């Protein structure tokens, strides 16, 4: 049985800051007892699998590394309507993925949650490596707290 809310961590943990979303979601899952209506998923770089994860869900919260033109380490909360993607896809391979396009497809198929929130975190370093940059590591607890607060707000509404 699917839960009402899903927190999806995206990214690659062997590409330093690119894995921030996965690491935050993993940390948040240690608070799962506080949020029985919420499932926490490390979706890695599974791309189109997101379509299935969000189907039948009331609210999806994504945590992802995002190039937003901000200072490295900045976290911003936004909805898909507040942004446009600047990602250039060659459409040559299944290995390209763009969350915004996947959300578009879910909408077209009428399989999209009513509410979607994205937490984007500006990277300092995206290169091979299993560790976060000092900038993001130093603010890690802040990211977790911010999304925990969002979850507390979301679930207190009686979802």
């Amino acid at each position: 049985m699917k839960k009402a809310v899903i927190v999806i961590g995206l990214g690659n943990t062997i590409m330093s800051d690119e894995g921030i979303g996965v690491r935050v979601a993993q940390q948040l899952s240690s608070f799962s007892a506080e949020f029985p209506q919420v499932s926490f998923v490390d979706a890695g770089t599974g791309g189109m699998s997101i379509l299935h994860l969000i189907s039948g869900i009331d609210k999806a919260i994504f945590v992802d590394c995002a190039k937003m033109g901000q200072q490295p380490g900045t976290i911003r909360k936004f909805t898909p309507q507040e942004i446009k993607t600047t990602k250039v896809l060659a459409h040559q391979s299944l290995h390209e993925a763009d969350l915004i396009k996947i959300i578009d497809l879910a909408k077209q198929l009428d399989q999209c949650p009513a509410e979607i929130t994205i937490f984007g975190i500006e990277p300092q370093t995206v290169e091979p490596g299993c560790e976060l940059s000092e900038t993001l590591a130093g603010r890690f607890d802040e990211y977790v707290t911010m999304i925990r607060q969002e979850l507390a707000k979301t679930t207190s509404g009686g979802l």
Partner: protein
Amino acid sequence: MHKNMNINVHHVTRVEGHGNIVVNVNNGKIEKLQWQVPEAPRFFEAMVRGRSYQDIQTIVSRICGICSITHSLASTKAVESALGLKVSEQTDKLRILMHYSEQLQSHTLHVGYLAAPDFFGEPSVVPLVPKATDAVKTIVRAHRIANDWSDLLAGRTTHPVTLIPGGLTRIPTEQQLRQLQKTLKDAVPDLKAIAGVVLSVAGNIPKFERDTEYVSLKQTKPPTYTFYHGGITSNDNKGAALPIEKWHDVTNEYVVEQSTAKWTKWHRDSYAVGALARFNNNAELLSPMGKDAANMFGLKKGCCNPYMNTVAQLVECFHIVETSIALIDELLTKGLKQEKVISSPKAGKGSGCVEAPRGILFHEYEFDKNGLCTAADICIPTNQNHASMQKDFEKLVPEIINESEDSIRLKLEMLVRSYDPCISCSTHMLNVEFVK
């Protein structure tokens, strides 16, 4: 004939992955015609050095979000070979079942989301939805079944967590396997519907042939259309198969100026891997439904039209589902048992090989007496296809040079897509601008 033409399809996205198509015609003469891959995803080989044999799978499962089960299985087999670990028959069968789930995931994605828009004349799957809503929904359903199937066997859809050297940390219940079997049986009409839709637009698959060497796994004991066991063969190898440990004799990696990814060659100056390679080397071993699907499209052993790789993937979808239904029967007949897995560090070197959805994949590791990795070597299918793609370009472009520039560009892009190269999977981050 175009007097002058410049086609430059540049895929400039993120740090590590891009493939470019370059065609320059000057005064009616083709001056430059290249598939450029200025990328070599080799960093993970350095990343596993110094790590325990128990950590290798977890790291390499992140190499790719589409082939994470495949990388995990190849690495686990290599580690087991290095440490001299044998797995039980039950583990072997459950891993094969896990592997099939990823083949179905990837093939349905490729056929439905990447190739079908080409056949329908759409730039991507999103605008295809209003044009072929039912077809897209059927594809999504089939893909979802494959994802749930991976979830059951691998512990999650991507980046598996149930695989460890020597066995599995968790196995499904018999009831879950029975349910999976029913789901797969129920999925057959959807697969037939997908095949029907693809067949209806199959006339748009370019007719192009190039005599090609095809390399894949081949299993003789027992004879099986294999994705997992066996040795390495090609249509140039007179039916013989090399042991996996000899994979360097097959890949013969070399450096070319136009690409920082290494290219490969065996008997000729290039070879191709993937569904069409497997089909060409093993077609007679397909399941009955797989053979029916091949007949439906007129796909015959010896086909050397690279665009037909997509059809070969579709054929394999039928084979995978039918074979998995039978495999679940075998597992249930014997009954599932919880098995204890024990492994200990040991010095050694081992190779592991499985078929990724897009072709044969090799992993090799060396460990010291403490089980720490001292060397790693991985050869991905996409690198093995680069030379073949270049050779296809060189034969195709002169044949279509009188067509419009748009038509030439589209056919080259479709050719690249038919191979489904893994050129940018290790980062998926958002690139956004705020509009509100």
